[in-house]
Every structure is written in C-alpha cells, then in structure tokens.
C-alpha cells in the first residue's frame, strides 16, 4: 500500500449564510490552489465531494468550476461523517496506486437535510438529533452520576478554544453558569451543549509519497484509519458508549502502530457535550468513568489537546465539511502552523468523526 499525505488545504469561515453549495465548494478549493505551491489543475487526478446536499453531480460540477478534468470524480454522503469518509476514499485511490493526487472538498448549507435520517422508522416522530442526544445524556447521568456542570465544562472549553479559530461559527466565550442556565431544549439538554448546523466548506489535497514533495516540505501522513458501521437506526445503540468509535479507534491505532497515549492532539466529534465525555473514554484517552475529571483538567490548565479549533460545539457543524475541517486542523497542528491554537511538540494527531448517534464512526491517525 502506498503512503498518502495531506499536502494542502483550504477552509472557509463557518456561517449562518445561505450560500449555494457550488459556491461553498469552490471557495475552499480556491484556497487550496492559492496556498499550495506548484499546484495546477492538470496535476489533480481525482475530485471527491463530501456533502449531504441534495444537488447532483457535484464532483463533476466542482471539477468544471475549478478547471480540473480528473480521472475520478464523485460525491460521498455518510451524514455527519461524510467528510472523513470522503478522505478515506481519496486515501484508498492513492494507496492502491490508481492515482497520485486527489482533491477532497466538503461543504454543507445551514439548512442541509443531513441532520434527520428519515429512513429510521424506530425514531418515530422524535427524528431530530436532540432526542438521541437527550437519551445519551440522561443515560450518562444515570450510569456515571454526570452533572450538568460537568457537561457544561465541555461546552465552555470548546467555545473558549473556538475564539482563536478565525473560521469558527462562534467567537463568544461562555461561562459554565451561562451554559448551565442556557435554554432547555429538553430536560437533559441545554442549547449551549449542542453544536450548530451552519454553512461552510473545507478541502484537503492528498498525494502519494512520490508526488507529495512537489507540493509541500511538510507532508502530514495519514498513518492509521479505522471505520465501523454498527447500524443505521438509533435504537439499536448502546446509550453510554460509542461502540463503533471504540472499534474504529482500535483499528486506526493498530494500523498506525501507536497507542492512544502517544497522541498529542485530537479533533473529536462533540456534536453534543455528552459526546466528548463519551469519546475521550472510548478513544482510550482516559479510563472509563473519568472523562469529566479529564475534561475539567484540560479546562483548568487551558490545555487545548482536545478540539483545539473549538470542536463542533465551538466551530459549528456544516456536516459534509466537518470531518475535513478536523483533518485541516490536525494538519496545521502537526505542521506547527496553528498559531494561537498551537499545541507544543505535536507529532501525532487524531481525528474522530461519527454519524447518527455513533451508529458509525471514522478515526484517522495523522503523523508529521
């Protein structure tokens, strides 16, 4: 299998603006061309679009708008983890030797249809993500005695970290008390414990080892990948563990030949505060039933190891762009280019992206 690196990237600001999906896709793609040395259209072999938008043929449309005539172009949709799924597709084309260079661009609009899985009959009328998030939160409180204050710590930390991310949807700091007293969406969910759907676009340029040096002196290697789909419908889930993430993480660690303790920085899928508490345990950053203390320590010591760009809660969640934006952040961290967000001596990073209440998960390990 050939080695594959991230060699370029682009990222728009995440906003409430209702922009056409094609314009969003083009904007982060343009940034890739503006910032990657020696890049010209004829050097791109594949164009993969990641989105939940209903528009058709976006791989070809983005290629045409960008003047690219790729060998491979198509769209990937996998709800909230469309972005990481598209990058894994691009990785596979290069690793197999089929092509050398793939542009992966993800975008969604604020009102995208990807939040609700209409097929899932078992959710009944409770089809919005706030309902599964309420069940996760209630079950976590019940099993681990998790408090509203501990949940609010996740949101306070991630909102605070998003202030230094120029592309984040939110640049407002919130106190723990403000979060705990924010609007009740349900008995178990405050509005500031939720990520927001928004409009945005992110791109990465992937290249084989032979091609990478043409575009960058600092390639970031995709060294480990794990993916797992357990089901589509929410009600098959366990409520206090992200079991697909556990499996995906173990596979990614094995492929990258690392342990979780070697990871210096991670972007994890905090769609709701409870998801970060669950993920830091399920990715094996901390032991079971210690996540609240783990996050509290990060918050108190201003350690940005988890979700330095602000996570989904702080940065916003344009579904098709999210996984790619997470990869852009980890790439910048490992290149020591994350400015105020920079983690010192970051050599190994992780991306955790999941869909529909963790019925499926993707985990990537990146190395400098």
């Amino acid at each position, binding site marked *: 299998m050939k080695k594959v690196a991230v060699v370029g990237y682009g990222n728009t600001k995440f906003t409430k603006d209702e922009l056409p999906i094609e314009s969003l896709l083009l904007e982060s793609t343009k940034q890739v061309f503006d910032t990657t040395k020696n890049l010209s259209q004829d050097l791109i072999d594949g164009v993969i679009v990641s989105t939940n938008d209903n528009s058709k043929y976006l791989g070809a449309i983005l290629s045409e708008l960008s003047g690219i005539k790729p060998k491979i172009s198509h769209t990937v949709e996998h709800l909230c983890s469309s972005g990481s799924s598209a990058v894994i597709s691009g990785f596979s084309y290069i690793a197999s030797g089929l092509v050398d260079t793939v542009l992966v661009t993800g975008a969604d609009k604020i009102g995208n249809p990807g939040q609700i899985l209409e097929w*899932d*009959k*078992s*959710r*009944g*009328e*409770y*089809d919005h993500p*706030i*309902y599964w998030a*309420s*069940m996760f*939160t*209630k*079950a976590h409180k*019940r099993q681990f005695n998790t408090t509203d204050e501990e949940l609010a710590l996740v949101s306070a930390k991630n909102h605070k970290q998003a202030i230094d991310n120029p592309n984040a949807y939110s640049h407002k700091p919130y106190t723990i008390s403000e979060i705990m007293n924010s609007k009740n*969406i*349900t*008995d*178990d*969910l405050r509005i500031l414990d939720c990520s927001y759907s928004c409009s945005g676009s992110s791109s990465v340029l992937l290249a084989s080892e032979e091609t990478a040096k043409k575009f960058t002196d600092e390639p970031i290697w995709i060294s480990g990948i794990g993916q797992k789909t357990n089901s*589509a*419908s*929410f*009600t*098959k889930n366990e*409520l206090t563990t992200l079991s697909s993430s556990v499996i995906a993480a173990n596979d990614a660690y094995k492929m990258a030949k690392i342990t979780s303790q070697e990871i210096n920085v991670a972007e994890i899928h905090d769609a709701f505060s409870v998801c970060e508490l669950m993920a830091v345990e399920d990715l094996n950053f901390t032991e079971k039933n210690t996540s609240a203390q783990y996050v509290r320590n990060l918050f108190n010591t201003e350690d940005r190891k988890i979700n330095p760009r602000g996570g989904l809660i702080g940065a916003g969640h344009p579904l098709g762009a999210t996984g790619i934006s997470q990869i852009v952040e980890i790439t910048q961290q490992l290149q020591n280019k994350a400015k105020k967000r920079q983690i010192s001596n970051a050599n190994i990073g992780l991306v955790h992206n999941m869909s529909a209440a963790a019925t499926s998960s993707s985990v990537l390990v990146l190395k400098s």
Partner: protein
Amino acid sequence: MNKFEDELKTGNFVTSECNHCNRIVWPPSNYCDNCFREVNWRKVSENGIIIEFSKKEHDIFCIAEFENKIRIIGKLDTEINMIKPGQIIKLSKCLLNDKNRFFFSLENNQ
C-alpha cells in the same frame, strides 16, 4: 412503503419476522437480514419496557423495547417522577401521519 407503514396507518404496530431463522427482523424489512428469505408480518406484543426517557416541555418521550428486540421512541403519558428504566409500558396508540407516532402508558399503575 412496506407492510409496516401500511399497518401503522390503520393503527397496528407490526414487525417483520423470519420463520426460517426464527428471529424478529428489526427495523422492519421485506427480507430477513440473516438469510434474505421473505419475512412474515405479525403484530408486536402490547407490552414493552422503558429503556431510557427524557422530557421536552410537557412531553415525556422514551425508548421502549418490545420482545427483547424491537426498540422505538414514543410519547409516554404519565408524570416524570413516576418512571424509571425497566418499567413496563403498554402501547396505547400508534399512527402514521407524516411521521410514525407511538403513544405509551404505564401498565397497571406501577
């Protein structure tokens, strides 16, 4: 639209079941997810148990499990301090208008 939705429209909660594998096929589907034979359809038993619950404004919603396998989210007609996971509920009504809707009540005033 499959048999599940046809029946739900008339107020019946049915599941698919594979007679060959002797197992419930859930979520509902026309074919067994193990052997791919055609399923049979039958009514789901009236009683289930509460797996987890929460509340939005005045509505209590819960995941209820029937026959140790079939889980659905529906509205529970009771007071929030009356319930805990593991309690037995009864399906009091189900319908399909735009979305699937399930209504539960606590069984025997537990």
